[in-house]
């Protein structure tokens, strides 16, 4: 009459943790270890390759004194807010419209969704052309007889950042649409019926009932979009290369150029730390709320 668990039961108790352990260990090393390493680097005078001569807060002081970094901060603020708002609005509108028993939804949906499948390494040239006044939209309009048409944003230091917003919205709004569509399809129809019986108009139905019910989808969209905004790199490089001048510099391009082409790894690392802190400031409260709720 043994009361000790048999071997199989004990193994079964440990197995789940054993299965999870490699992923967790890998995360600790490759995410948190690397973040720690980056934080460490940001306090060193590393130039071309990592070195370990500590310089205190010097890199951070230099960083905030750099005009390019300030441009990057202003740009990301403009870009992120416009990008998130427009993507959400377009995604939501498309999802609501597609949810009206549209004929050909099966064709339209993948069309909206496919840009997410392409990297800007692939579509960069096409976008550059399209936005270029000399060959793109402007020229086409001129060829089609609309001589006064002007679209020179990408050449204009003040407007170039908005062309990046356009391309970014193009890439991800379809994905946001899919998320909202999934949310819409998941809403209990009895609630909608009840609201219609209560006499709600279509507009009221969406504004008062449906959109509030989509709150989880809004949150997911916000989180995905905001981290994509902070990470956006390919996009900028493909479209403007940071130009005209350095008008479209973003934190990610700034970090890359200081770390890898300007041989100022220390400053690059300190900008990376700022980026990570921003991401954490958005993610941690969200994750905390989400995970706590589910517990």
């Amino acid at each position, binding site marked *: 009459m043994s009361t000790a668990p048999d071997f199989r039961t004990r193994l079964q108790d440990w197995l789940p943790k054993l299965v999870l352990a490699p992923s967790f260990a890998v995360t600790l090393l490759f995410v948190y270890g690397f973040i720690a390493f980056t934080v460490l680097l940001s306090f060193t005078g590393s130039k071309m390759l990592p070195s370990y001569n500590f310089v205190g807060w010097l890199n951070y002081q230099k960083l905030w004194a750099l005009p390019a970094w300030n441009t990057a901060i202003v740009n990301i603020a403009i870009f992120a807010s416009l990008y998130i708002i427009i993507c959400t609005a377009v995604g939501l509108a498309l999802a609501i419209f597609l949810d009206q028993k549209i004929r050909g939804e099966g064709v339209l949906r993948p069309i909206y969704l496919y840009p997410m499948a392409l990297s800007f390494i692939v579509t960069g040239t096409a976008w550059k052309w399209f936005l270029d006044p000399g060959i793109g939209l402007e020229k086409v309009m001129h060829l089609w007889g609309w001589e006064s048409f002007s679209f020179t944003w990408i050449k204009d230091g003040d407007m170039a950042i908005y062309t990046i917003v356009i391309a970014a919205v193009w890439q991800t709004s379809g994905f946001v649409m899919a998320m909202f569509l*999934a949310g819409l399809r998941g809403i209990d129809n009895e609630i*909608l019926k009840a609201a219609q019986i209560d006499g709600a108009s279509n507009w009221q139905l969406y504004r008062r009932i449906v959109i509030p019910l989509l709150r989880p989808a809004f949150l997911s969209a916000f989180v995905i979009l905001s981290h994509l905004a902070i990470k956006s790199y390919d996009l900028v490089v493909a479209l403007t290369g940071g130009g005209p001048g350095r008008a479209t510099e973003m934190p990610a391009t700034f970090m890359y150029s200081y770390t890898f082409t300007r041989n100022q790894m220390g400053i690059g690392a300190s900008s990376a730390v700022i980026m*990570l802190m921003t991401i954490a400031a958005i993610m941690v409260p969200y994750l905390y709320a989400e995970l706590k709720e589910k517990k």
Partner: protein
Amino acid sequence: MAAVTQDTAVSMGRIARVFIYLLLLLFALFYLLPLYVMGINSVKPLAEITGGNMMALPQVWTLDPWRSAWSTAQIGVEPTGLKPYFLNSILMVVPAVAISTIVGALNGYVLTKWRFRGDTWVFGLMLFSCFIPFQIVLIPMAMVLGKLGLAGTVPGLVLVHVVYGIGFTTLYFRNYYAAFPTELVRAAQIDGAGFFQIFWRILLPVSGPIAVVSVIWQFTNIWNDFLFGASFGGTSQPMTVALNNLVQSSTGVKEYNVHFAGAILAALPTLFVYFVAGRYFVRGLMAGSVKG
């Protein structure tokens, strides 16, 4: 469900409906535009491109740019086209997607059906890997890969992609399995099925929708990666790096038609995946991942 949406649609009126269709079509055009530009210019002779309208249909149709991009264009010192790099990408993507999806599924299974103290913390920590900008990890990753002797090898590249993919795949599967009745797992336990048997026989067979989401997501992300491929690919560079070499060549005549053909070639697998499996994607998102 059909009844209600129909009701709302009908009450929206004819004009509103026409307006909706118009708007949807307009957006479809917007989304298709870059693909159209790429497609149409990849079948024009170069002269027509440099002199003409980017939106115009070709006067002379030619498939030479495609042939050139695929098999004869200069990539590095060899005029191999993108063909050999295609295989490199496949060799990297397939194992990376498979491993990260399976690991994600197992993690999701443990985190929902074998819960333990602090499991949400573990999950929360793992999730942060989705949000780390890749440029940051390049140097430390190179150090680790060097130590492991995996630098410049396909397994090394697979490792990198798996590491930064499991956050997403775990998230997807965890949310999906959370909605899966735990009683089924208990029933299977009483029936005598072990940890892996339950996973293999009970959960995996019903994981289709979320597996599609996970595979699509991972496939496109890994296929499209350039940074890791260029840095850690060594001599087995993936397709994106080759495409970049084709498009970004520093001097000489830019053969835009070949570039576009190459770009579409490089994008074909992901496009294929999205167009074919796209509807399962929304279904899969519905099945759990959006619930947060």
